[in-house]
């Protein structure tokens, strides 16, 4: 078991290194730089800026300096918010994004999974059609449309939600709803199809034949197995949702870190792009690892580290 974790951690570190390297090299190879301005910056100032941020050093040197910083969790200064470090951006942005993401995740789990199960159990009944109709809608309507509609109706027409910000508890309603819409629908659909699949399995028939109560069949045998694909999806989804969404954060004016993913690319803010990407990647890898551990609990046949 310990050997397994050591292997996993080692492979995670290698993945992170590859991601860092790729982001680092790719960003620097596209045209434009962090100090490209409509009104060109005087040469002397540009020189100072490049020196200051070590951008005049050879690429490999910059790279090793960056890795050195990374090891000590120092992601460097942001070029586009002077006087602010990438660590500051993550420290200030992540909690806001994560809070919205966490509420959205809770919503997704407590609504998505039960709705999927109910749908599967009442297959081809009106409730199934209703849930699947809503779920299809949720999957196809893009989040920015949903966000705009929420603001238009709940903040504009009804005036029961604030138009922007997450300074009051109600401020969370809009962003959480808009953020969870897609995944909630997806989870409901996934749960339903996986549940239907499981219900057709031989062991369910056997369980029923053995005279187990329907309740026991469903809860003890069916759901647990049906949840495996759902858990597989939930892991990476949580990583993506907790690190923020550019669209949702922009529309609801949430001070999260999701927007840095996009804005920093436009600004050629090399350190921010790389830093945020590494943070996201690390979080993602961690979530995937947690999913693997969760498998073991849901289905004891899956034993970690004994794949061979």
């Amino acid at each position, binding site marked *: 078991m310990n050997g397994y974790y050591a292997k996993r951690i080692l492979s995670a570190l290698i993945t992170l290194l590859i991601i860092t390297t790729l982001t680092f090299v790719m960003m620097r190879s596209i*045209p*434009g*730089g962090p100090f*490209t*301005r*409509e*009104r*060109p*910056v*005087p*040469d*002397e*100032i540009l*020189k*100072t800026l490049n020196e*200051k941020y070590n951008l005049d050093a050879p690429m490999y040197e910059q790279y090793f300096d960056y890795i050195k910083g990374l090891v000590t969790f120092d992601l460097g*200064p942001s070029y586009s*918010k*002077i*006087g*602010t470090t990438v660590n500051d*951006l993550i420290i*200030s*942005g992540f909690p*806001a994004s994560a809070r919205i993401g966490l509420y959205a995740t809770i919503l997704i*789990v*407590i*609504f998505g*999974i*039960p709705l999927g199960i109910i749908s599967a159990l009442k297959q081809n009944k009106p409730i199934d059609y209703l849930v699947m109709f809503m779920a299809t809608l949720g999957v196809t309507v893009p989040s920015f449309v949903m966000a*705009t509609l929420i*603001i238009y109706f709940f*903040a*504009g027409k009804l*005036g*029961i*939600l*604030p*138009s*922007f*910000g997450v*300074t*009051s508890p*109600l401020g969370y*309603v809009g962003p959480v709803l808009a953020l969870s819409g897609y995944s909630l629908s997806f989870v409901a659909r996934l749960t339903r199809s996986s549940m239907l699949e499981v219900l057709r399995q031989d062991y369910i028939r056997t369980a029923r034949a053995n005279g187990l109560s329907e309740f026991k069949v469903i*809860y*003890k045998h069916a*759901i*647990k197995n049906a949840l495996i694909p759902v858990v597989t999806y939930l892991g990476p989804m949580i990583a993506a949702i907790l690190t923020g969404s550019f669209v949702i954060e*922009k*529309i*609801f*004016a*949430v*001070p999260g870190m999701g927007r840095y993913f996009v804005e920093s690319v*436009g*600004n*050629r803010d090399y350190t921010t792009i790389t830093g945020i990407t590494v943070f996201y990647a690390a979080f993602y890898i961690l979530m995937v690892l947690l999913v693997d551990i969760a498998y073991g*609990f849901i289905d*004891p046949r899956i034993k970690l580290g004994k794949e061979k």
Partner: protein
Amino acid sequence: MKKLLSLLLVLALSVSLLAACGKTEEPSTTPETTETPEVTETGTEKILNWNVGADPKTIDPTLNGASDGGDVINQTFEALVREKSGEIFPGIAESWEVSEDGLTVTFKLRESNWSDGSPLTAHDFVYSWKRGMDPATASEYSWIWEYTNVVGAMDVVNGEGSMDDVGVVATDDYTLEVKLNNPTDYIVSLLSFYHFMPVKQSSVEAAADGAWAKDPALAVSNGPFVLTSYKIGEGLTLAKNPEYWNAENVMLDGIKGVFIDEEATSYQAYQNGELHFIPTVPTAETPRLIAEDPNFYVFPLLGTYYYNFNLNLDMWQDVRVRKAFALAIDREMIVETLAAGQVPAAGFVPPGFLDADGNDFFETAGSYGVPTDGSKVTEAQELLAEAGYPNGEGFPEFTILYNTSEGHQVVAELIQEMFKTNLGVNTKLENQEWAVFQDTRKVGDFELARGGWLTDFMDPMGLLSIFTTGNAYNDPKYSNEEYDALLSKAAVTRGKEHFDVLYEAQEMFIADMPVIPVYHYTDVMLVSEKLQGWDRSVLGTVDFSSATLVE
């Protein structure tokens, strides 16, 4: 173990179902609770709710180079003078005197304090200005010293001269003497710009790279308001500064600024009464707001939107060809489509500059035969035919390059259509992401590329001088010795002579037609009628120093 787990799962499910029931009830309980967090105007406190726009990169006056930062700085700092709607008011300087030869400007400073209560003297200005010039400070706006004509300033900016030779001296605690290379009529109004606002040395040195300005504990300032909180990506709060020299005329108790860069959200919040002042509105709303809403304001901005010919290419060598393309577009139609009150541009200098006789430069200059509508299409066709391309036959297809944005795309599509129908010339459209576009344009890898220029001081020279040979922003690579000579002359002349030279320069420029002027920019804003007494500088910076809120 297995039993326990399944039990837990069942428990979790039932809890979630219960929670689900609880959740469905929520909407009915929400309306009551929402009434309370209607923040701000508690009692008699007058707090302005303002959308700053994007989270400013910095709010250190010396380092700032962006309008959102400038808007905040204009509330927290005070320069020697304050400009409102084009008029100069005394700021920290009580009075000033320009010497006979125009080469020395002496400012008499009032006795005033920093927000921490310490005295503000002429030495603070000397320190702040030298900090701005110093390449070690790396202020992106240090190029502006070129236009001040301050003795020795550009040498320092270019890393060649010594700080000791700079013509800025505090002759005593309250007298600031500024020496100029050439007489510069606009110098006093230019000094109202944020780059020239004073900063306190001990604050600046307490946190590197302007971080002090966003830290309420360190952000000592001298303006009408002082920073009380700053949250990255969220907003800031300002409180009235009791130490401000003119504090008795500051009516607001504070300002709550938010950073919303999504226009639709900001507009919704304004309509809900959550915001009093928003700097932009969704484009789709502009025509209606212009027509119906008296609280919607459109101001001219001192800038021009245009297209650059790449004069390094053979295809643009014939001035008749360039003229033909410039005459073939209907500027009024473009402006009507954009519908934000923009002014069609026949020349390069926008409305808003007064010449020595007090006449508007833009109006006096006239149109140089360049139409604002589509009335000269026949002339354009004739010019193109004379140049050897009757009905556009034989003229190479070329690419219109612009940076990715809805607005730019609209303009590009319109002129593409106009070139096609009016001249019979086919073009392709290409858009590039902003940073890529700037690089492409700078290296001259284009045929026809969008350009835009906004100036930061009250003289048409700021616009015309970018097309002198070798200027970093001369994207068409226009080079005309006579034009260069005229602008050099403009730099050292004053009054009528100065403006005559500039009129002549613009005439020469349009005769050579290295760019296609399209329109002059405008600045729009939506302001609640509750907010009274607000103002803005001609350069587009908002001013709440004498604003108040009424019921």
